[in-house]
């Protein structure tokens, strides 16, 4: 199967000139960053139309990351979802182990076009940080990654990987010491070093043009999956399901199915200890419209507009905001967003590991938990596509502690 690697959204689906998807998006940034953000937008528009850029990007995705990624049917897992037919889009098989590398390679090529020798990024679970460190090593760019102290502890392996790749990992000690605070620090760095530096934003959030640009780079996920599923089954799925933190893997999957009214688009948010508990990161389930990190979207906040601290067992979903296009799809009713608790995600994590021999990222396990629910609704005639956005190696310490694997002599509980 051939794959088209760079697939900007069709006209009419992109945001408007000011970066709005309906009521969401925009550019809420300090004046010092306006010129830099505009430069990224201008350069991205030029790159989109430049055959050399798209060819180089496509070649990297084939030869370096291993696209197209596989589509794997998971019948033993699906038996636990009422016997629905279920396929996983295997973004975990990309180089560096997640979908993140795709956006990173696109933006590193863009940084090179802009003549920026220094790249900064933020990371929660480390997948985006590792991908950024990897691409910067490949292109010889200086790389700084901001990471909350809490996340550095729970993702020590990825911290070591980034350092091995020559990246400086800067611990962030402010606020909740997680992803939100790492993004704040990266913005501060960008304000101070904007002439030499590209801020390689990791998800489909932030100020315009990042939500649209990251989505475009990730659209390949859904376009490939759509072709692959039609080849294999002759039909479209009843539901396409993905986890949602900032939302890049989900948008990448959803976009290819937006015109297909019969395909349910389901985003699985991190509900932590439960939405009612207050300890969660379920932004669309429990947030309100607001401004965070440069755009208007749904945000976890108090009645005075202070951002509240999120919680998720997954460092990659531990974020109080969400990309503005998801907010728009939610308000349109085109996509549905469901909360998945830590415990539900971890049960799905273990189930996929034991039924299919695939250890998923804890982020992706949220999508798998959602798929178990949707599968039971659809029954045996249903067809589900799940985006397996990343692999679980990085999460083994968290999983081992959760399941008590360090404390048993034999098989775990």
């Amino acid at each position: 199967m051939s794959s088209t690697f760079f697939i900007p959204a069709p006209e009419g689906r992109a945001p408007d000139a000011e970066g709005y998807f309906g009521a969401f998006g925009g550019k809420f940034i300090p004046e010092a960053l306006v010129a830099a953000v505009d430069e990224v937008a201008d350069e991205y528009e030029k790159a989109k139309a430049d055959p050399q850029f798209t060819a180089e990007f496509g070649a990297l995705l084939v030869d370096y990351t291993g696209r197209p990624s596989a589509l794997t049917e998971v019948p033993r897992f699906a038996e636990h979802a009422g016997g629905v037919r279920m396929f996983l889009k295997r973004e975990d098989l990309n180089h560096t182990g997640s979908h993140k590398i795709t956006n990173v390679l696109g933006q590193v090529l863009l940084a090179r076009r802009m003549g920026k020798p220094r790249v900064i990024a933020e990371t929660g679970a480390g997948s985006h940080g590792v991908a950024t460190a990897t691409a910067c090593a490949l292109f010889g760019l200086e790389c700084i990654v901001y990471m909350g102290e809490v996340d550095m502890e729970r993702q020590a392996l990825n911290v070591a990987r980034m350092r091995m790749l020559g990246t400086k990992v800067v611990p962030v000690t402010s606020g909740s010491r997680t992803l939100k605070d790492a993004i704040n620090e990266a913005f501060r760095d960008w304000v101070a070093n904007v002439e030499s530096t590209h801020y390689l934003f990791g998800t489909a959030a932030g100020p315009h043009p990042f939500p649209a640009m990251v989505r475009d780079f990730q659209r390949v996920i859904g376009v490939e999956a759509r072709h692959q599923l039609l080849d294999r089954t002759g039909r479209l799925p009843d539901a396409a399901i993905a986890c949602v933190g900032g939302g890049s893997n989900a948008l990448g999957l959803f976009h290819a199915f937006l015109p297909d009214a019969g395909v349910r688009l389901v985003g699985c948010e991190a509900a932590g200890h439960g939405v009612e508990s207050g300890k969660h990161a379920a932004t669309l389930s429990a947030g309100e419209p607001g401004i965070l990190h440069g755009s208007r979207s749904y945000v976890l906040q108090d009645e005075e507009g202070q951002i509240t601290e999120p919680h998720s067992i997954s460092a990659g979903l531990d974020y109080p905001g969400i990309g503005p296009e998801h907010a728009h799809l939610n308000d349109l009713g085109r996509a549905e967003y469901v909360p998945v608790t830590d415990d539900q995600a971890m049960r799905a994590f273990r189930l996929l590991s034991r039924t299919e021999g695939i250890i998923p990222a804890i982020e992706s396990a949220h999508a798998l938990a959602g798929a178990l629910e949707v599968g039971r609704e659809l029954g045996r005639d249903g067809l589900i596509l799940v985006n397996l956005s990343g692999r679980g190696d990085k999460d083994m310490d968290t999983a081992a502690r959760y399941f008590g694997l360090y404390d048993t002599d034999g098989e775990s509980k």
Partner: protein
Amino acid sequence: MSGNLQLLNDTLASIRAEGRAALIAYLPAGFPTVDGGVAAIKTVLDSGADIVEVGLPHSDPVLDGPVIQTADDLALRGGLKIADVIRTVREAHAATGKPVLVMSYWNPIARYGIERFATELADAGGAGCILSDLPVQESATWRDHAGKQGLATVFVVAPSTRDERLRRITAAGSGFVYAASTMGVTGVRETDGASAADLVRRTRATTDLPVCVGIGVSTPDQAAEVAGFADGVAVGTAFVQALLDAPDETTGLASLRALTTALARGVRGGR
């Protein structure tokens, strides 16, 4: 219309007539406590600051350095509410008669209610707002309410702001223009005098509004240097640091008094 834009305009005009630059002080509300913050703001206004910016602390202050973020954290952990910020404005203005602005990120105001905030700020005698992350193209709704309430909208311009955009910003703004002296977050540093002077020159070419320079200014010598080419000098982090360093409130206020007096001398010695 009850806001104090006119007072701000008159204050800056009379300072210009004196042939000197204005000293603009920044302190966050609620730091170290609400009452302690009011006392600190009154102290800087009584010791030679001409205008004060009252910070509305935010959980995610992306444009601020670690000193102001620390103060914001302390204020929020102390339970600061927007009503306390409004009270701070009211008491500071009532006690001194000087122009009091609020400096904030946009989300707290948008969430609180734009009209409600503008009305309450004006009723408290506030002169206007500086909104760090509300760029001109997103500002129409705020400016509409601010205008109705007689409040200034002070925009920030940066060395990276191109001339065409400068014209758009200064055409939309009122009160004065806040020129960020260097690219960077708030904090004490060596200021780039040449870059700031160039930005002031480029800004003046687009507007008759006073152009005040901030970000990085902390010493009387720096204040004097900036006063040589700008209509006002804004100082924030140095004041916050003085309070953070003080072992108790009395010492802190004495320290603020000394720093303000020295900076006020600085802005008078610049020309």
